């Protein structure tokens, strides 16, 4: 098995002793097939046990190990070391406060996610005994790609609008709201509109499109946001020009 020598430049921040973050370098040898997360695990186990970062599944499913790798939001478990030359710079996800080292404070995203009610609000609620809500493959296809979101927040780290306007509800939250709005079983669009059709919702987006480019699950939040804008525009015209169409 071939090995390669790599150098990681990791952002370190200890809230108990540091007034500002600093970079620390680790030179290690590692197998060709390692990802950045493997290298961090190796550093933590054998070089510096004080290094803090989040991870869980190591297979791009849990969405915990999002970080900036050479300035680009990536899942550390999906970023192969062989794809990088020279010193690899590893920083916590951009646009989120740093809790410690590579660990960020994600409260803002969690609160925004809850605001869009990302769960089924049945159109026709029925008792459990009445059986499941059935759906055709075509109805599933309408929202499937938006349901692939793993809440990794790479899209927030890629979005300059979120960096400049922290009130912006952001790509993943809007994509997940759209996922439920597109669901044939759901009747909660009206309730979600208050959050996603507002200025701080879809209209804050100027279609940079970075969210969709960095999404590890190909969710396409940028597409979801533009579709929310179109539906909100149709809503507005219906309400003002054809009020009789509204119930």
């Amino acid at each position, binding site marked *: 098995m071939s090995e390669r020598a790599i150098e990681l430049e990791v952002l370190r*921040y200890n*809230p*108990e002793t*540091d007034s*500002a*973050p600093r970079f620390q370098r680790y030179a290690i040898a590692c197998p060709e097939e390692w990802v950045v997360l493997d290298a961090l695990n190796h550093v933590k186990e054998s070089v510096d046990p004080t290094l803090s970062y989040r991870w869980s599944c190591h297979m791009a499913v849990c969405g915990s190990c999002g970080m900036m790798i050479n*300035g*680009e939001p990536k899942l550390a478990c999906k970023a192969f070391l062989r794809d990088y030359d020279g010193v690899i710079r590893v920083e916590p996800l*951009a*646009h989120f*406060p*740093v*809790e410690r080292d590579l660990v960020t*404070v994600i409260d803002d995203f969690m609160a925004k996610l809850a605001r869009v009610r990302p769960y089924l609000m049945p159109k026709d609620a029925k008792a459990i005994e009445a059986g499941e809500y059935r759906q055709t*493959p*075509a109805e599933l*296809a*309408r929202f499937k790609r938006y349901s692939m979101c793993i809440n990794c927040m790479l899209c927030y780290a890629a979005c*300059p609008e979120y*960096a*400049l306007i922290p009130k912006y509800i952001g790509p993943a939250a809007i994509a997940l709201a759209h996922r439920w709005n597109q669901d044939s079983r759901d009747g909660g669009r009206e309730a979600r509109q208050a959050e996603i059709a507002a200025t701080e919702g879809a209209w804050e987006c*100027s*279609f*940079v*499109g*970075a969210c*969709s*480019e960095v999404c590890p699950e190909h969710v*396409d939040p*940028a*597409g979801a946001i*533009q*579709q929310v*804008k*179109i539906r909100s525009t149709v809503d507005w015209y219906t309400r003002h020009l054809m009020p009789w169409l509204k119930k």
Partner: protein
Amino acid sequence: MAEKVNHKPYARAVTSEWIFRHPRYVRYMVREFSCLFIGGWTLLMVWGLKQLAAGPDAWAAFLELLRSPASIVFHVLALAFAAYHSVTWFNLTPKALPLQRGEAFVPDAAIAGAHFGVWAALSLAMLYLAGAF
């Protein structure tokens, strides 16, 4: 008993550096800046209409101004930016207007292609009305 945790999150400053973090942000900013040229050209056309209304001398002076080197440079730039905006924008249309047929979606190229087709047809119609051929 739980140990007291010292929360002191560090907020890293947001600077304009993000524009150069990845080429996609530069491409985006170029698209945003295209509005200056397109807006400028629109104002020039409004001013041209005013000159047309003011009489033949004012109109001739306006046409003379359009032939100046500065005006030609501006028009070449405005055309380049307008084309860049249109092309990048039409390429994004499949994201905003996905068309589902059964379980599959119409290919992105077909949706963007339809926009390019209509763009070409309208441009040709304009040139025809302007007497270009």
